[in-house]
């Protein structure tokens, strides 16, 4: 009788220790959401639509470059600490490609706010619908690229942080997990950097080019087909938005009126003329 009693309490201790270890391991895990955007390909020839307030959508699309780096960073964090990487995007059916590629590279699940109306939303409305779509989720980190290659506002991540009431940091090069949260390396102008300690959960906007992007493998692409992809209709998140606060009045090809001035004379004379232009016109001297 005594033996089995001791046996039982020994088992109890093992179970307790295991539970603590598992919980602390779980606590070490990171649940990361990566916000991704599909943008027209960088060298796609763009044409204005009839009302000249947007482009014609018959171009090739690709993932916004900084977002690809954000995804890569998230996948690396998951590899280091365990956890989960989810990806989210908004846009018409074609935007699903970005999610598929992310799943193929190793993301665990995807959320697609599917409707072409999402394309016309400004940064604030986009952040609002994302916040609505992830209500109830418990992410530790949300990554966005530092800005998009099409609009280039550089706002969505920061706005999302404010809507969620989370701390944020922008133009991040490096992320390290610490006891109290994370330590990130921020890029500043002119070759300066700064480390910042932050609690979790937090929103980070990620700088481009900070790591080498992995390739999706054939197995990854095959497996991606079976990973969860939740579709969210416009109607579901419509209550969160109330019209854009800014409006593109018109889009146009910037006209540059170039009058090329040819400078003549001997080499010495031309040099002097050039310096004159450098000083008085270009104002670099």
């Amino acid at each position, binding site marked *: 009788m005594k033996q089995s009693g001791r046996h039982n309490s020994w088992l109890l201790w093992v179970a307790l220790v295991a539970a603590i270890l598992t919980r602390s391991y779980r606590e070490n895990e990171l649940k990361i959401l990566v916000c991704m955007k599909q943008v027209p390909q960088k060298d796609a020839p763009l044409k204005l639509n009839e009302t000249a307030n947007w482009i014609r959508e018959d171009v090739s699309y690709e993932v916004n470059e900084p977002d690809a780096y954000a995804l890569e960073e998230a996948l690396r964090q998951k590899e280091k600490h365990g956890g989960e990487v989810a990806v989210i995007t908004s846009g018409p059916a074609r935007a699903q490609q970005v999610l598929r590629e992310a799943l193929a590279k190793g993301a665990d699940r995807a959320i697609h706010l599917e409707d072409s109306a999402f394309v016309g939303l400004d940064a604030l409305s986009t952040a609002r619908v994302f916040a609505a779509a992830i209500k109830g989720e418990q992410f530790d980190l949300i990554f966005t690229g530092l800005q998009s290659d099409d609009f280039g506002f550089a706002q969505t991540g*920061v706005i999302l942080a404010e809507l969620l009431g989370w701390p944020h940091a922008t133009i991040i090069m490096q992320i390290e997990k610490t006891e109290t949260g994370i330590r990130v390396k921020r890029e500043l102008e002119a*070759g300066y950097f700064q480390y910042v300690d932050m609690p979790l959960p937090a929103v980070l906007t990620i700088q481009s080019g900070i790591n080498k992007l992995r390739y999706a493998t054939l197995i990854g692409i095959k497996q991606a087909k079976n990973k969860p992809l939740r579709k969210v209709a416009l109607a579901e998140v419509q209550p969160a938005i109330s019209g854009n606060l800014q409006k593109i009045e018109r889009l146009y090809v910037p006209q540059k009126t170039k009058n090329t001035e040819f400078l003549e004379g001997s080499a010495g004379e031309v040099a002097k003329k050039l310096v004159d232009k450098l000083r008085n016109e270009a104002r670099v001297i």
Partner: protein
Amino acid sequence: MPDTILVVAEQREGKLNRVSWETVTAGQALASQTGWTLEAAVVGSGISGIASEVASRKAAKVYAVESPKLEPYTPDAFAFALKQLIESKQPKLVLMPHTYQVRDFVPKLATAMGRTVISDCVGYKKEGDKLVFTRQMFQGKLAADVSFGCEPPWFVTFQNGAFRGDKVETGAAAARVETVNVEIGDGVIRNRPQEVFKEAKQAVDLTQAEIIVSVGRGIKEQKNIELARQLAEALGGEIAASRPICDSGWLPMDRQIGSSGQTVAPKLYLALGISGAIQHIVGMKGARTIIAVNKDSEAPIFEIADYAVVGNLFDIVPPLIEEVRKAKATG
């Protein structure tokens, strides 16, 4: 209360960020066109000196927004402090330079106030009573005129170089400086920033260079790049190249400008011996001033150059270096 424009100048570690002058110039231009009053603000701790510096320019008033918690910079503290200021002073238009720091907090500030920011603008237009702000989209391929669809305050950030900081007007007398002390409670600031430090960058970021001297096939041999390097040095700029030069290994890949390299829009782009193939042009046609030197009078680069020299770069560049050095010594 008259309508006001509030320019938020930027200070970093006790020094005024010179790009703020460009925003003041923008503010002054807008003020004169709209008839609104121009005011400015500086945010930080112990920044009365900087506020006075700003006050030396033509503006009605400068606010020194003070709190010990505003140093070092954090987005939480800055958004908090400016929200208080803006709610109290109620400017119609709030202008800031589009710096890394401003990008870090102004969207938060605007959202907290239920407003929006039109960021990274290169100019503005007044269309009747409406103000419309111009910004580049699709990496400069298209321009957009954007207007506000909400009530003021309207937040706008201007791109580096969109306005001339050296053209800022000085006021007849210094503007009044009003100190605004802000109480920032515990728990507002969540980030703990460490010291700012400089690090040798692995790759050069030509997009940050104001002056670029670029070489093409016309440089003929690798050793001749030294000439271009001297010119770049004299001007205080960076050296870059078209693709064939980098492909040959004469300059590293991160110096390449063009569709398979970097896209730049510096103040000055000096193209030496570059023919101007479209693959290169798309990487630099946004430069403010383009000077091209090429032997071939039909080189396509001349179509986008502001100043063109048809001649042998080996004849032109040495005296040019001399003249630049002379001008810099006397200037």
